[in-house]
């Protein structure tokens, strides 16, 4: 289903001035801030704990990973979060997935979310692939019966027919990520949250994943997506949010934002650039 830019703009204009509680909006991020404390293990000791308690104030550095970010995602839309390392993309995804609670602001999500925060998220390496599929399925809230129906499909998609009963300890990172992607996308979630999940795997598998995502978009699934690969973002997502140091710089169509972002990376020469070539592939394999 190809939708031209003009159509998207039309659709967006239609929504201007509408109530955020609109039926179309399935993710509403309203002025959200997330705080972490850089406690440096200060409060882990009994002595420090009591000292802090007597002082009446807990003495750790506050670090705002996300500051005053607001945006909305409509049902069936695809939104990418881009930005440099440490800009708060993953934190924002976690907040949307409901894993961490924002210190300020509200996040409302309609429908069930399948978080794929990290590629091996939720896998227990000492169990076999078969056991892990059922475990991960249960984490997404699916029954054993439902997963049995989907089992063959998952194995087929991840190309792991020979390794079904092998403990995942001996899997390569590519195998783990393939399985992770297959499990998270086989289920009928309304919203898929994908953090760098397309980074691993060969070109053929990447294509397969992109195809699957396109199919899901067609089926009305909403996708939130993090990637450092701007080409991929342009291909997969219709819209993009650019984050930097926890603040939202811009939001718009993915073409426009990605171009701005690439330009920004080129101009900010003093800053550390995105690693390229070999280093980049290493960095991606390490997630």
């Amino acid at each position: 289903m190809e939708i031209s830019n003009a159509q998207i703009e039309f659709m967006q204009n239609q929504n201007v001035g509408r109530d955020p509680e609109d039926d179309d909006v399935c993710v509403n991020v309203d002025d959200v801030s997330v705080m972490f404390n850089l406690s440096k293990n200060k409060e882990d000791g009994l002595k420090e704990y009591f000292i802090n308690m007597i002082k009446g104030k807990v003495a750790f550095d506050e670090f705002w990973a996300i500051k005053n970010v607001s945006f909305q995602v409509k049902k069936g839309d695809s939104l990418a979060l881009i930005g440099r390392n440490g800009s708060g993309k993953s934190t924002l995804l976690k907040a949307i997935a409901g894993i961490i609670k924002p210190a300020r602001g509200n996040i409302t999500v309609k429908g069930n979310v399948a978080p794929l925060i990290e590629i091996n998220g939720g896998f227990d390496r000492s169990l076999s692939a078969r056991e892990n599929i059922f475990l991960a399925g249960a984490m997404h809230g699916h029954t054993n019966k439902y997963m049995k129906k989907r089992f063959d499909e998952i194995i087929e998609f991840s190309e792991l027919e020979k390794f079904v009963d092998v403990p995942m300890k001996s899997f390569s990172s590519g195998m783990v990520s393939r399985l992770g992607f297959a499990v998270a996308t086989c289920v009928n979630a309304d919203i898929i949250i994908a953090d760098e999940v397309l980074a691993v795997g060969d070109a053929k598998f990447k294509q397969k994943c992109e195809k699957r995502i396109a199919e899901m978009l067609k089926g009305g699934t909403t996708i939130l997506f993090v990637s450092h690969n701007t080409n991929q973002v342009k291909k997969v997502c219709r819209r993009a949010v650019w984050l930097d140091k926890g603040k939202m710089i811009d939001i718009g169509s993915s073409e426009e934002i990605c171009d701005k972002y690439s330009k920004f990376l080129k101009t900010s020469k003093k800053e550390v650039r995105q690693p390229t070539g070999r280093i980049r592939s290493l960095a991606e394999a390490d997630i």
Partner: protein
Amino acid sequence: MLKKSLYEFMNYMPFLKEIVKRDFKKKYYKSVLGIAWSMLNPLLLMVVMSVVFSTVFRRSIPYYPVYWFSGYIIFTFITQASHNAMNSMIHNASLIKKMKIPNYFFCISSVTLQFIMALFSLITFFIVAAFFKVPFTMNVFLFFVPLIYSYFFALGLGMFLCAYGTFLRDLDHLYSVARRMWMYLTPLFYPVDIIPSQFRFLWDLNPIYIYLSIFRDLTMNGVMPSERTFIIATLYSIITLILGIVTFKEKEERFFLYI
């Protein structure tokens, strides 16, 4: 609100099943005897304890090995389950950080795993009881009642400890010491008669002792415990469970900052 929580709870039941299965498999990973250890372990301990203590308490306690065994099952279940539940957030940090699973499920799974192991130990217990020819009564079939009390008490205690233990790791070590003290304060291997009667009321304050005496009355003495005992036991379980849930709910929002 309550309806939503209930719905959430039912939705994650398959997860509870899978996570208990996982922990169970991991516990006996690559051991030859596997689950048989949870039946064999107390049996071997029982032999040791009987040899050591039966000369001391032979007169006052009939069926000493069975007496000790019953105490072991209930006490180990409650303290080990609550201890594991207390550390469950730290042990499952990798899952909690990545998946949206209600945190309390990890407490429930820790307690449930210990409960299953207690059931296996119970098989040995009945074999031992039959071996020593403990008189059989129909009351034996109510053996699960004190276990259910223990389950909810352990869950409440575990959630309460977890709410603080996640922030303050020292509690882990402190609780180990407390468990040892608790063990000596509970008549596991000594008869309660050796406590002077004017202090006996203090022992009634110990929930484990209440549950244990119900269990012993039903399975060994063939007596139905008094209604008063049942009421006290129910109150202990419910109050502890409510206290645990309230404390846990209040603190859980900040867990992710500390794990």
